[in-house]
């Protein structure tokens, strides 16, 4: 088997690798959807996420309240703040995961023009537009590496083998994982290292070509090198996908995000959004005194 250098040598090997079917893909993709793509459908060109006066409660406990926040399309918005101030709750409200955890979401969440909690919205269809990456890598342990990547496509009714292979390979390329796994696509996913598993999860989320990618502290279980790779990935993806990134790491927020939303605990132990704006502005000249204390490391 030919050795592949991780940093260089990619492009040339790519053409000679028999599994790299992406170059000779059929016109099927283009044919099927060219018309719609030309329509300039806002749905397929990336959607902004808009939260308007969102409050989330679990029984009597209010997790976070009155969040009004715009996550611009194809940009990275970091949600930062101390533990327990509702960042993750906000994230999970976007793809309606609270439907399953007994959380009540009030206010309006919109994906582009679509009301996420509207009466006609089918949660499954909604979630096929939104990818999610969790704190700990959670590849499906019973599936191979490649089956993990295309699992979302399968769940959404894609059955065409050629299409599955093309899109799976594309997702692996997008997650910068192709070089590492191309010779072991059929191995169990758990044989990968932690950082690679997390990138596999990102590839899995990207395979359904989401307009929005929700990332819930994706690096908290990873070492600095693996973290750096994920951060590069986030930067690379930001032109295509709207990314909402929950992180505890101020430096990470500063490195990868275009916008920052700072959450803090209010006096009554309820999480609230304190400040939101372009990353540079929020870090350099925060409006709110609490934000200033938090981002400069005096609090939290």
């Amino acid at each position, binding site marked *: 088997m030919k050795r592949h250098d991780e940093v260089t040598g990619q492009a040339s090997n790519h053409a000679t690798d028999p599994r790299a079917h992406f170059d000779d893909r059929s016109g099927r993709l283009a044919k099927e959807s060219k018309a719609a793509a030309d329509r300039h459908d806002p749905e397929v060109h990336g959607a902004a996420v808009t939260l308007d006066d969102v409050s989330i409660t679990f029984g009597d406990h209010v997790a976070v309240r009155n969040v009004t926040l715009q996550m611009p399309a194809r940009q990275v918005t970091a949600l930062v703040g101390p533990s327990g101030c509702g960042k993750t709750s906000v994230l999970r409200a976007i793809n309606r995961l609270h439907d399953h955890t007994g959380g009540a979401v009030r206010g309006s969440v919109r994906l582009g023009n679509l009301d996420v909690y509207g009466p006609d919205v089918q949660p*499954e269809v909604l979630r096929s537009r939104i990818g999610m990456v969790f704190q700990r890598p959670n590849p499906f342990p019973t599936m191979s590496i490649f089956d993990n990547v295309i699992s979302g496509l399968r769940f959404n*009714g*894609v059955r065409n083998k050629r299409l599955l292979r093309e899109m799976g390979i594309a997702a692996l390329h997008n997650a910068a994982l192709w070089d590492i796994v191309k010779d072991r696509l059929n191995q169990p996913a758990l044989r990968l290292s932690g950082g690679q598993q997390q990138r596999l999860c990102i590839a899995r989320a990207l395979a359904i070509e989401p307009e929005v990618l929700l990332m819930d502290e994706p690096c908290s279980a990873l070492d600095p090198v693996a973290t750096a790779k994920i951060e590069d*990935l986030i930067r690379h993806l930001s032109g295509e996908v709207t990314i909402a990134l929950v992180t505890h790491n101020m430096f990470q927020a500063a490195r990868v995000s275009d916008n920052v939303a700072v959450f803090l605990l209010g006096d009554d132990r309820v999480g609230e959004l304190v400040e939101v704006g372009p990353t540079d502005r929020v870090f350099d000249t925060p409006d709110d005194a609490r934000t200033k204390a938090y981002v400069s490391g005096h609090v939290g």
Partner: protein
Amino acid sequence: MRTLPTVQVALDGAMPDMGLAEVARRRLVVRDSARRSIRRRRMAGRAMQVICLIAVPIGVAPLVALVLATVSKGAGAVNIGFLLHAPTPSGVPGGGISTAIAGSGEIVAYAIALAVPMGLFIALFLFERPGGIASTIRFSADVMSGVPSIIIGIFAYAVYVERFHHFSNVAAGFALGVLMLPIMVRANEEAMRTVSVDLWEAGVSLGARRSRVARSVVLRGALPGVVTGNLLAVARGVGETAPLLFTVASPTFAMTLLIFNDATQPFSDAQQTAWGTALVLLALVLILSVTARMVAWTLNRKTR
């Protein structure tokens, strides 16, 4: 602030840059597929739900029917006297099953005295000393729990009754203990496995001896599972008949034997006694199972 260096990975050139139009096309493929297939997927989901909803009553029906039948036929026989009086010959009114209840209690007590400590120590060995011997023991336990109970009865007969030349509740307790032991061993070991290695290492790294960690960390953590598993094994043993056939002196000394004996007699009062005993036994087993759940629940609650 944003200029902190990061390790550069090969992202550019990894794939021909296809631009947003290509991304948009691929997105449409998935969206179309998701939308086109959602009706089918929902139907499939509904169908599965319906199957589950049908399966529940079918699965629960035998249990309900069994309890109803036992209660309706046995309730007439059961009263305080039935529980407190000794059996009388068929045709003589006023008989009870006190000897059978006492005998069953005695037999189960012997079985518990034998099987519970043994089960704990064997499980601890399996947990603490993994290896060839442990695997062999584990495998034997699995085989043992599949051995027909009548064979365990014959075994107890051979090693006890034949040697000492008399039937006895001790022999019966021995037989039941042998029957319950493998179930307890496996349940205990499973419970111990739920205690994470992290906790074991935390204990050892504090300077505790292995035996102390086994007691204070492993056994303590496994306690809910251990109690539940043992009680369920006892509930299982109480209802056994075959191991007692060759070991108990008289069918009036054990509830299950009494049921077997009286139910096969042509006299209606004997059959009535059998139903009544069945009801008492069923209630006993139910109480044991419920107790097992409650104990586990209480013990689990204490840790949060």
